[in-house]
């Protein structure tokens, strides 16, 4: 039976983290080397946690399925990272960042965690600058900021359009130093395939070597999962191809509750799918909406090219529907409006699956030079992918899955419901509620890894000093290894007719159609009736060629798709049970007359944490009530 105790420290919201740090148990510097910590994943959260824990003196083992820790998907973040530095004197503060994040998350996040995030945000910028991250500067040499959605202050630090890359390289370099010093052992091209729980605590993990196919166990005093989100359950998303839910899902199966799986974020400005071979979608920075105008033709049977369609035959639907915000309407609202335009048959492009983002007015007003200066690199990227020059032809955009707010349930210490097992970064559910604000993912990953876990893990380890913990020869490890070997052999043995990618595409279609931008009770029930038979087909008709004793990407994919199936069912169940609309979870039945999300605070101001029962269709739902002591629950309005 899962118990959800968030362990929020006592005291005023601004003092909770300090109170925690004053009360927590410490491990003497000389004793730290007696403890081993496993970190799975090497993105912002994983690399920063591993480097910091190693600096403190713990033995750290890092596992990544990439060839190098620097490849993690944090690298693809474009826009920036928020911090309450108030360098621009525009009224920013820790409290304001805290408030914006809670409100942006549609009042579905835990106050205590979010306030701590806002507090440590300022330390992140200091730390990353010290690491040599070349943030954008003003001519006087001080740091530049830009503004981002959901905030009325400029608090976003950036490094051109590659902020994620630069932050990840900063954390990677710090980790590389610890690897070079021998304080961290790196296991690259190694994937977690199970977590092992012995006597009620996480004793370690079982991994598969992606070069040799060998299955092996690793024991540790504590294990941290920094394994990212599950957006690839949709098949098409802006996530990297290898992003998967396996580590989190395997932990869930061992007793870690999975929270709010239905909270997924759709980003409005991505390049639409071009053909059936498409493998992923590419995001175009939201900043484009500052100068681009969104429109579709008024008539569904329009055949003229964009430049031949006169003004009176165009529908600038965002400007029409949301006159005060216009093209800068929030992410979820713009996304749904685009979906409705395309669903009405007025989509543009060869597949009629996009809407125009038109810069001609901006080019006329500002000149091509200014537009190029602002968006030149994005225009180039668009041209490389879409093969059209956005200076001459309007861009085509469409929403795509981008980030998942749900994840492993964690308490204030970032510990899951399995003692000794932690989750950080996108892999946990803790800070963004039902919707994440732009430039907050990087902030959370680094906050967790640099400034939270290094403290909270010590609090867990201190009482374990000189107590023996199970090693890899324990029968539970052996049983998990045997199970993992059987699982991968099974995929090879089915010898059916369909590839893992084929099943992944079919799964993604169901999830996108019924658990995507807009959900209904009927649609979710349909999804829940279609998923089990498809999953059964997967188990009977999968074809994995090659063998299990050398690199086999088809086999790797089979394992990941298997876990996505199970997660997909839980997602739909979670969406069905949450009879309200909030943030990224939009249930068509629960909207006001203006089409805005209608929350039900009386019945749903809680976190839904699901307990594994052996079948995701019959998972048990637990609720952690959210208590708002500091912020008053209000309608999320940006008018």
């Amino acid at each position, binding site marked *: 039976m899962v118990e959800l105790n968030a362990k929020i420290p006592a005291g005023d919201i601004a003092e909770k983290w300090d109170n925690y740090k004053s009360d927590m148990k410490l491990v003497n510097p000389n004793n730290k080397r007696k403890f081993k910590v496993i970190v799975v994943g090497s993105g912002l959260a994983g690399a920063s946690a591993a480097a910091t824990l190693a600096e403190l003196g713990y033995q750290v083992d890092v596992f990544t399925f990439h060839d190098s820790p620097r490849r993690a998907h944090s690298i693809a973040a474009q826009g920036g990272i928020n911090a309450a530095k108030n360098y621009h004197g525009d009224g920013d503060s820790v409290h304001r960042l805290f408030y914006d994040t809670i409100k942006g998350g549609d009042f579905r996040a835990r106050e205590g965690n979010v306030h701590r995030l806002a507090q440590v945000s300022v330390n992140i910028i200091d730390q990353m600058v010290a690491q040599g991250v070349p943030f954008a*500067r003003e001519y006087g040499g001080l740091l530049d900021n830009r503004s981002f959605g959901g905030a009325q202050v400029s608090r976003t630090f950036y490094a051109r359009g590659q902020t994620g890359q630069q932050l990840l390289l900063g954390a990677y370099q710090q980790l590389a130093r610890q690897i070079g010093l021998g304080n961290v052992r790196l296991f690259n091209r190694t994937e977690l395939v199970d977590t092992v729980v012995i006597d009620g605590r996480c004793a370690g993990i079982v991994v598969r070597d992606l070069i040799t196919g060998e299955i092996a166990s690793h024991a540790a005093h504590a294990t941290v999962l920094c394994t990212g989100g599950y957006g690839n359950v949709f098949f098409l998303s802006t996530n990297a191809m290898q992003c998967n839910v396996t580590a989190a899902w395997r932990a869930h199966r061992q007793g870690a509750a999975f929270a709010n799986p239905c909270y997924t974020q759709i980003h409005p400005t991505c390049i639409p799918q071009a053909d059936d071979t498409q493998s992923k979608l590419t995001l175009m920075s939201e900043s484009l909406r500052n100068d681009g105008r969104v429109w579709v033709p008024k008539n569904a049977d329009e055949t003229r090219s964009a430049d031949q369609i006169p003004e009176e035959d165009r529908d600038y639907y965002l400007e029409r529907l949301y006159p005060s915000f216009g093209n800068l309407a929030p992410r979820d609202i713009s996304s749904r409006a685009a979906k409705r335009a395309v669903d009405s048959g007025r989509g543009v492009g060869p597949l009629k699956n996009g809407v125009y983002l038109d810069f001609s007015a901006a080019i006329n007003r500002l000149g091509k030079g200014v537009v190029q200066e602002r968006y030149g690199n994005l225009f180039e990227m668009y041209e490389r992918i879409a093969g059209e020059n956005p200076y001459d032809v309007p861009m085509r955009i469409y929403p795509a899955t981008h980030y998942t707010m749900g994840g492993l349930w964690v308490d204030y210490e970032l510990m899951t419901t399995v003692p000794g097992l932690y989750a950080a970064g996108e892999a946990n559910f803790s800070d963004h509620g039902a919707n994440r604000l732009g430039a907050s993912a990087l902030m959370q990953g680094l906050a967790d890894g640099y400034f939270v876990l290094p403290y909270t893990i010590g609090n867990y380890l201190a009482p374990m000093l000189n107590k023996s913990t199970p090693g890899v020869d324990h029968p539970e490890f052996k049983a998990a290894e045997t199970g993992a070997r059987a699982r991968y052999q099974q995929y090879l043995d089915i010898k059916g007719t369909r*590839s893992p990618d084929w099943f992944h595409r079919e799964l993604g279609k169901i999830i996108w159609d019924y658990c995507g931008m807009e959900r209904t009770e009927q649609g979710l029930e349909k999804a829940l009736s279609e998923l089990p038979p498809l999953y059964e087909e997967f188990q009977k008709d999968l*074809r994995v060629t090659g063998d299990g004793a050398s690199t086999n990407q088809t086999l790797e994919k089979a394992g990941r798709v298997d876990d996505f199936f199970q997660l997909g069912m839980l997602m739909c169940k979670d969406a069905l049970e949450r009879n309200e609309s909030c943030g990224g979870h939009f249930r068509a039945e629960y909207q006001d007359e203006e089409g805005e999300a209608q929350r039900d605070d009386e019945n749903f101001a809680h976190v839904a944490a699901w307990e594994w029962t052996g079948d995701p269709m019959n998972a048990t739902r637990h609720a952690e009530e959210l208590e708002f002591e500091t912020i008053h629950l209000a309608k999320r309005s940006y008018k």
Partner: protein
Amino acid sequence: MSNHLTNLTLKVWRQSGPNDGGHFESYRIDSISDEASFLEMLDVLNEKLIGDGKEAVVFDHDCREGICGTCSLMIDGQAHGPQRGTATCQLHMRKFQSNQEIVIEPWRATAFPIVKDLMVDRSAFDRIVEAGGFITAPTGGAPDANLIPIAKPVADASMDAAECIGCGACVAACPNGAANLFTSAKVAHLNLLPQGQAERWSRVEAMVETMDEHFGSCTNHGECEAACPKSISIDFIAMMHKDYRKAKFKNRRLIAQI
């Protein structure tokens, strides 16, 4: 509407493991949309191979946005293919023609041993960074970020170098298999910044010497810059050499004291 390319012949390097000799195999792609990326074309090939009961071609890839540096491939002898400043994952089939034969090989460099098919082991790059490609700044002790102003041109130049995605195209394109562009980009990123000054000389020495253990020597062909998907300038190589030369004196205390 998108057009389709027809009748493509792919000559793909297949190698079952590090100890296998390897060979080319030819595959036919009957039809592919010109909107497809090069890697999506390989996805199509792999689906076909699996359908035929054959083993899929192994190749490294991940973000497919040109930023993670995981993808590679020599395409018709060019690292990342024919389009300048573009990683393989951002290359699209509209750059090719119907009836074309396309030769696809892994990175060719002794320091990047082949793992399988088109996948190579680039961990020698990690060894270079581990040797000195960092600023020693343990978590927690950092001063306020605005304490040290950095002139915009300096920050911009550092960023130009820091854009390196660590894909290894520079090494693959170099006739000597040298890693000078990769190493110099990391050296320059950190050595240009005020925060990087404390370890400037030890950094360049450690990184260059680790590089020399794994990779060939630079003889200024400039192929690396041409192949780099981020168009990183070989000026950084000149800067690294200059710093290395200085470091050799500065790090020898007796000479420095004279």
